[in-house]
Each structure stands twice: as C-alpha cells, then as structure tokens.
C-alpha cells in the first residue's frame, strides 16, 4: 500500500454496495460520452437484433413500447469512479427481444451499437437471464437525451460504458469483437466488483 502523506479522504461509512475504487455520486448523474448528443425523436428510433439469430428483427418505437414492461431498481457504476445508488429504470428485458429472434447455439458474444455509431462488446451471457434491459424511463420520466434517450441499453452489473446510449441494435457473434472504448484500452468485460477497468486488469 502506497499511503499518500496527509490524505485521509472524506469521513466515510463503509458501504457494502460500493465496488472497490468507487465513490457515491449522490444525486449527481455525470454525463460522459465522446460524441455530440443526438436528438432522436421516438418516431425515428428503432432497435434491431441480428447476427447469429434464427430470425433477425427490427422494432420501431411503438412496437418496442408495446412489449411487456420490465423495471430495474438498483445501483449503477461508472468506470470514471462514481456509483449511483437506488436508481429506477423502466423498459423491456432483453430476454423478451431474444425470445423473438432466437439466438443460435453458436452465438457467444454481442456487439451493442448506437444510432451514433458507438459500440460496446459483451459476452452474450451478460445480456440474458434478466440482467439487461432496453430502458426508456428513469425515475418514471422519459430518459433524457444526454443519458441516452429515447432509449439505451442497461447492463447494470457491468461498468456503465457497456450500457450503450441511443441503442440502435445488437449483433450476435461467435467471437469477441472489441467495441469503441475496448479498442481504446478499456477492459473486455468491465465487472466493477473485480475492478476490471482497463485491458489487463
């Protein structure tokens, strides 16, 4: 341990919900995206699932909204160091979309991409089993454009750069293909509890 002279940090309560190296951002919700925030009207939004699936499909806004709803209540963690506790998102479970397209047995990985061309790679197993959503509501309100509205991917058990804003689609693959930040040195998986921040962690 490399103690910094004189540094004590803020008075803190031990918070078991806080992954290593994270701090509680409280009511703040920092915005960290590398591109210009797009203004996408719901009517212009669509979401496609293709690649190694039996039946590639594209949902328009009204079609996606008509699917059975599913909510997430819990915490989110950003690789830049903040965590946000007790957030509530509303949307549809990715399992619902996958049931419709039927992933092939050979599919092992996914690339999520946005309407701006941003990409993030994920093992398929991280997107199934009730652990990932397409979300359009935050705290009961429409998701703001700078947080990925009208709709974003939500994979709360991984660092938040995986939760692709302005989600446009997911392509299933039989291999891993690094996305935008992964090509820029970030970790392939990004589990906050194992502090998988950068490639090699």
């Amino acid at each position, binding site marked *: *341990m*490399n*103690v*910094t*002279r*004189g*540094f*004590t*940090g*803020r008075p*803190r309560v031990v918070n078991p919900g806080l992954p*290593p*190296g994270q*701090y509680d951002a409280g009511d*703040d919700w*920092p*915005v*960290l*995206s*590398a*591109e*210009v*925030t*797009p203004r996408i009207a719901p009517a212009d939004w669509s979401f496609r699932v293709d*690649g*190694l699936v039996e039946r590639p499909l594209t949902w328009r806004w009204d079609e996606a909204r008509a699917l059975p709803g599913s909510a997430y209540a819990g915490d989110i963690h950003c690789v*830049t*160091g*903040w965590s946000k506790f007790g957030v509530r998102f509303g949307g549809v479970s990715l399992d619902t979309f996958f049931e419709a397209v039927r992933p092939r047995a*050979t599919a092992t990985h996914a*690339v999520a*991409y946005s*309407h*701006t*061309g*941003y*990409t993030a790679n994920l093992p398929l197993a991280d997107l199934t089993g009730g652990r990932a959503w397409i979300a359009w509501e935050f705290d009961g309100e429409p998701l703001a454009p*700078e947080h990925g509205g009208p709709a974003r991917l939500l994979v709360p058990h991984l660092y938040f750069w995986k939760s692709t804003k302005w989600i*446009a689609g997911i*392509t*299933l*693959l*039989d*291999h891993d*293909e690094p*996305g*935008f*930040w992964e*090509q*820029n*040195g970030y970790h392939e998986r990004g589990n906050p509890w194992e502090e998988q*921040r*950068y*490639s*090699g*962690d």
Partner: protein
Amino acid sequence: MTTTFTPPSRFAVPGRIAVNGQVAAAWQTATLTEIRRETPRAATFRLAVPRWAGHLPGQHLMLRLTAPDGYVAQRHYSIASAPDDSGHIELTLDHVPDGEVSSWFHTLARPGDTVELRGPLSGFFAWPGDRPALLLGAGSGVVPLMSMVRHHRARGLEMPLRMLVSARGPEDLIYARELGAETTAVFTRSAPRGVPVGRLAAAHLAPLLSERPGGGWEAYVCGSNGFAEHASRLLVEAGQPVERIRIERFG
C-alpha cells in the same frame, strides 16, 4: 458461420492512436517536483514519472490517493504538458470546494510527495498534429487543449490550430501568459475594458469555421458537460460535421 460486425457510422472507427495497454494499465509512483499557481483557483503540478510510456496531446490519466486505512480515491486528470522526454508530466487542477482529491493537491501537497497514477488513457481525444485542429474549452477544459497547443509550438508544426477558451474572467483564465495569436478568450462574467462579456456564441465560431483549412477542421471540445453540450451544438449548427467533433466531458 462467422458474422463480422460493421458499425453503421464513422464514429465507431477506432481511435487513431493505439494506447499501449500493457504499460498504460500499470500503476506507478510519481513524485511531485513543482507546484505553479495559474489562477486563484487552479495550479499546475509537475510530476516525475520515471516509467512514463509517453502520451499524445489530449490524453488523460487516472490518479489515486491512498489513506492510512487503505481507502483510495481515484480521479481522471488530463495531461497538460506536451509529449517530451523530460521524464516529467504536468497536470493542472481546479480547486473544487470540498473536493476530496483536488483539495489534497491544493492544500496539503508539496514537492517530494508521491501519488500513484496509470496511463495515458483514451486515444480518442488525442491530437497527434495530423489534422487542422479547432479547440474549444472552458475552465479547466483548457488543460488537454493546452497540451495540443504546446505540442504544436514545440514541434513548430505548420498544421492550422485555433483555440477558443471560455473563462469567467481574466483572473480565471488558465495559462493566460502563454496564450498566443492562436487563441481567442471569451469571458462570461467580467472582462477587460472594451471586451464584451458573454457566453460562447455562434459569432465567435463563424470566423474560425469560415477559414476552412484543407481537409476541414477536426474539432475538440472539453469542459463541463454543460459547456460540452452548448459548444458541440453550436459547432453542429455552424456546419461542422458531427463525426468530426470529439468531446471530453469532465463529468
């Protein structure tokens, strides 16, 4: 069957610069060698980093402080210095009131202290000097942009480079003494006599965008999220292609 994914827009084209993952991912100890005051709220911290892998102007790093009980605080900071072989890098920190890390730097740090860091990180917001660059920054958002300006000068690059910086007033303008003809300052609360006070506006951008250097500008926007949203929207409205705007948001 193997499917290859092709992203739908140019934004996802990999950063032009590969980060050396191995060296950049390793934590290393840096020793503070010098503190220079820039403004009443900002100071520059010079660090000796013996195993620094080198960086490109615009990149940032992750810095961590450790308390005696093992508690760590880590934050990102842009690199202010141009790439050189001095074995040193410089950071410029705003003093955030009650800020955990910036308060340690501004009130306790002194030469000889050690901190830990890893980097450089992110090749996306970097500018190696290969394209005409239009830089827009506010507050400490000028830090990574200054690395680009310093690089441009140190190498005597011919590539067009222009910078617009927004500060609350002249006393808050970081690196004021160093700014040259490439820079236009915009003051939002108080300005020297004869200089208008106001927010960055289309009128500030128009003359720069009308210059149209060969190949067009690559725009770099850095600062708070509020500034990044405002400045990037102005650029788009003025005709700058959206995929040629790179943004670094400080949170």
